[in-house]
């Protein structure tokens, strides 16, 4: 593995390896001294062209816990606002000796361009590009599901296991969601069954080719007994007006597709509720659903650090193969 650009690039074995490594990383994060010397002397650049709180902080924490040097770069307040291109920004970072570039960009495919262009020799990690991919989010979601739903919840017994037979409902704004795209691919690779639940207007064109079923009715899907329900954020910044013509009104969306206490009551005993954050409380998820004991939303955040530590470890710790830019 040289870059992490798309959840679809991971084979089952590679994905399980990331999850197993993340489990060991998570164990180190329970210690009093959380810092490890593993990536001492390596430099990780967080290149963020789009706003983000948890992903950037999560990557920064992960890199620092492994003793890498972290340089944070956000487009706001940088030369990008003077019109600098991605290429020149990348060449600057290369000149500064970045071993890994964690990139978030509003344009789908920007990380791919960066990885294949030869502008930087470091590993490229996609931290979310447009409406395309967010592979580390999918990995941390899979990690969270494996912890709760596979084996008896112990850490050691799930090593080497995938998500075979786990049933997952992904609910909400699938159209604009890179989280949904990455999760569908990764969960399918790991053997889980995915059902997308969304109003017809928020289902992307071409969904028929995805390895997932589609449903328009949340209540019947929940009554069907999924093991995990993943609520997606309604991305109103990517819609023009309040509902953007995608749904009549926020209230109507909430009635049909919002998760509330009543709908949680429909779920089986063991099912977990997930959300990639940031949440629109009162829109796609009610406050009592978000704070219920079924919700693992806060745990997803701490698992995110462990998963990103694992990704950085697997990309950076081994033999330096930076000579060739292409090829995993």
């Amino acid at each position, binding site marked *: 593995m040289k870059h992490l650009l798309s959840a679809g690039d991971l084979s089952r074995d590679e994905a399980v390896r990331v999850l197993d490594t993340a489990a*060991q990383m998570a164990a180190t994060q329970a210690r009093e001294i959380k810092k490890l010397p593993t990536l001492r002397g390596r430099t990780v650049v967080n290149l963020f062209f789009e706003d983000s709180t948890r992903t950037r902080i999560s990557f920064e924490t992960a890199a620092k816990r492994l003793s890498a040097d972290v340089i944070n770069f956000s487009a706001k307040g940088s030369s990008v606002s003077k019109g600098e291109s991605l290429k020149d920004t990348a060449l600057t970072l290369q000149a500064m000796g970045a071993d890994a570039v964690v990139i978030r960009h509003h344009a789908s495919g920007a990380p791919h361009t960066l990885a294949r262009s030869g502008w930087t020799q470091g590993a490229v990690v996609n931290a979310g590009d447009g409406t395309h991919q967010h592979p580390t989010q999918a990995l941390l979601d899979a990690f969270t599901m494996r912890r709760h739903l596979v084996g008896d919840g112990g850490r*050691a017994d799930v090593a080497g296991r995938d998500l075979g037979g786990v049933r997952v409902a992904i609910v909400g704004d699938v159209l604009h969601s890179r989280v949904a795209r990455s999760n569908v691919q990764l969960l399918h690779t790991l053997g889980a069954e995915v059902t997308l639940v969304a109003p017809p207007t928020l289902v992307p064109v071409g969904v028929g080719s995805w390895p997932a079923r589609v449903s328009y009715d949340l209540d019947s899907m929940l009554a069907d007994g999924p093991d995990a329900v993943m609520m997606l954020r309604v991305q109103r910044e990517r819609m023009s007006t309040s509902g953007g013509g995608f749904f009549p009104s926020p209230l109507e969306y909430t009635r049909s597709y919002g998760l509330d206490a009543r709908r949680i009551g429909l779920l089986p005993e063991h099912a977990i509720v997930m959300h990639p954050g940031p949440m629109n409380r009162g829109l796609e998820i009610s406050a009592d659903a978000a704070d219920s004991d079924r919700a693992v939303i806060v745990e997803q955040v701490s698992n995110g650090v462990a998963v990103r530590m694992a990704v950085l470890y697997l990309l950076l710790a081994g033999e*330096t193969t930076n000579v060739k830019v292409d090829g995993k």
Partner: protein
Amino acid sequence: MSSGTAVPADGTPTGAARTEPAPAAPDATVVLGPPEISRALTRIAHEILERNRGGSRLVLLGIPTRGLPLAHRLAARLADVEPGLDAAALVGSLDVTMHRDDLAHHPTRAIGATDLPAAGIDGKVVVLVDDVLFSGRTIRAALDAISDLGRPAAVQLAALVDRGHRELPIRADYVGKNLPTSTSERVRVLLEETDGRDAVLIEGAR
């Protein structure tokens, strides 16, 4: 792994399966067989108890892959001699991968589990257990890992085989067998738990 032998280089997930059966090289010489290994461990167990005046403060930390089964065997022998000891509560595993100084020179290694006994290691006498003591770099990594986990009263080192060629000022307190080797030779330790049989082999001897 100081021997340069035992860790699966391709990063097979530890704990998922036994290490692949070691194909014995045609020129391998068996240096220790099952009875010798058993006797060496019994002697080391007695030495540990003698040196530390009993086993009340002991913790045995095995370094994966093959240090861990050795630590379990030592603990069982300690418990045989000192009836008050609980063998299972003595043993932990200490993965040193993330503290190694040679990560950049090898393909990415799989990270093993670190599990400390419930009582922790603060104020205890920690006996590190490894199969082969070679350059000493694994032990240096282990000492760093220990200092992140707590502050033991003392750290001692037990190795089944000491093959020499130290690159750091490190020595073992308990040695099963001193094995003079040349650097071109490979020393392999095979254990029932990981490889299906007990043996210490030297390969590449001319």
